[in-house]
């Protein structure tokens, strides 16, 4: 089943156009990745999905319904979870409160604080610390946990592995795989192929605000050289 689609979306920041007629589709249960170099428009695509950017033209479709006019809080309630690229931990809330606000505001479902603490025990150790006292990796775990606790059907992850040590990246990849195997759909943004090749079923290559290429991970392997050129700096 088609879960989410952007249809021919044009998105601007003031006078500068960041996305040109972008169309993206994500089906239930998939892991899809958006890859591209700095400034390609990947984060803008995620912001358009969660409603932090409104397309000047084009549509946002959720399970077949046109949800272009909905606000971020409404889209969150529909079942879209968002892990932003700079993590955006609430710095005047404790670690535990950063999770609790998601529990309180979000939908109910399989994800509970108990499960989160099982998956990331370090968050339990740090529960009463201020959110901004965590290390980069811990903040990333917190940002992912916060999104999971809203019990979304689609989880948007903006460069979740950026700046993390290789060992932690491996752990995170394992966690994301498990989350997907339990039925959650993932849309993952990355600048390189390392993590997408391990996780994603399908790939979109974004450059200059347009989708330059899309296909399955097997297709991508077959065209690896061409793709590398599109995303290399």
């Amino acid at each position, binding site marked *: 089943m088609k879960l989410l689609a952007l249809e021919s979306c044009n998105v601007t920041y003031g006078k500068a156009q960041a996305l040109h007629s972008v169309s993206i589709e994500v089906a239930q249960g998939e892991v899809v990745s958006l890859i591209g170099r700095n400034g390609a428009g990947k984060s803008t695509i995620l912001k358009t999905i*969660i*409603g*932090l950017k409104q397309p000047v033209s084009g549509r946002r479709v959720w399970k077949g319904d046109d949800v272009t006019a909905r*606000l*971020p*809080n409404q*889209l*969150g*309630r529909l079942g*879209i979870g*968002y892990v*932003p690229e700079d993590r*955006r931990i*609430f*710095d*005047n*809330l404790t670690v535990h*409160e950063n999770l*609790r*606000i*998601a529990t*309180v*505001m*979000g939908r109910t479902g399989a994800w509970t604080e108990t499960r989160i603490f099982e998956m990331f025990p370090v968050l339990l150790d740090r529960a009463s610390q*201020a959110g*901004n*006292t965590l290390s980069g990796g811990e903040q990333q775990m917190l940002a992912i946990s*916060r999104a999971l606790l*809203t019990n979304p059907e689609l989880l948007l992850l903006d460069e979740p592995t950026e700046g993390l040590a290789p060992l932690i990246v491996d752990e995170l990849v394992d966690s994301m795989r498990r989350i997907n195997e339990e039925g959650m759909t993932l849309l993952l943004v990355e600048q390189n192929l390392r993590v997408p090749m391990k996780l994603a079923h399908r790939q979109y290559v974004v450059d200059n605000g347009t989708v330059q290429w899309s296909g399955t991970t097997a297709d991508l392997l077959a065209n690896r050289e061409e793709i590398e050129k599109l995303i290399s700096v």
Partner: protein
Amino acid sequence: MSIIVIGLSLSFLLFLLAAGLTLIFGMLGVINFAHGALYMLGAFVGYQIVHMTGSFWLGLLFAPLIVACVGALIEILALKQVYDRDHIFQLLLTFGFILVIDDATKMIWGFDYKQVPTPEIFMAPISMFGSQIPSYRLFVIGFGAAVSLALFLLLDRSKWGMIIRAASSDPEMAQTLGVNVNRVRTGVFALGAYLAALGGVVSAPLVPIELGMGFSVIIDCFVVVIIGGLGNIRGAILASLLLGMTRAAGYTYATEWVELLTFALLIGTLMFRPAGLFSTKGRSA
């Protein structure tokens, strides 16, 4: 002794106003110039209720609620329309509401000053430590302390406080989690208006209720908020105590120096600790 009582009662009154000002600044990013006008409106509405019902307590209960509704309307009908623009538009708008509220007050209550009698049970002074203390002042201290405590519990311990803090820190992120940030903004502005009006009603038996009363108080509040650190509510309570006690001591020992002392405190803070005397990194609502 009476210096301490007057100082403390002044401090808590200041804090009721400064807390609202700080909350509104934290959430909306706007200094609400109309805060003093809402305080005055609280006093006038309180006067009206006392005048009609004969009960100070009904005034204390209902006047702040009425002013909170006025605050909510100001936010929804006016401020909300200019959030997308530069902050200066919002500042100008809150400034404009001083004039609107002043004129409305003039139209409804005229130019004469009004008085609210001290509630019956606080008429008699109490002897404490060998001096006669006006018992209404003691009530103001107790009531102010209770409201301050309730406010801290609301912000620090309750679900609503957590949502307000999150929405103040990163409104967009809070919104993606399902928080209706528009409604939080309205609620915070209404809460600020409520606290200002509460201050107005509590002050009513102590001061003449007149058009200028909001103006002198808002200046003191700005001093408190700047000394305490903009948006820092813990700082605001310490700064309220500092300013309240300074003023009380000043009135007793050196009346002509009070204003000078107040502004020396302000200028000193701005020069040496521009983030506020009590600024701390980390938790602040």
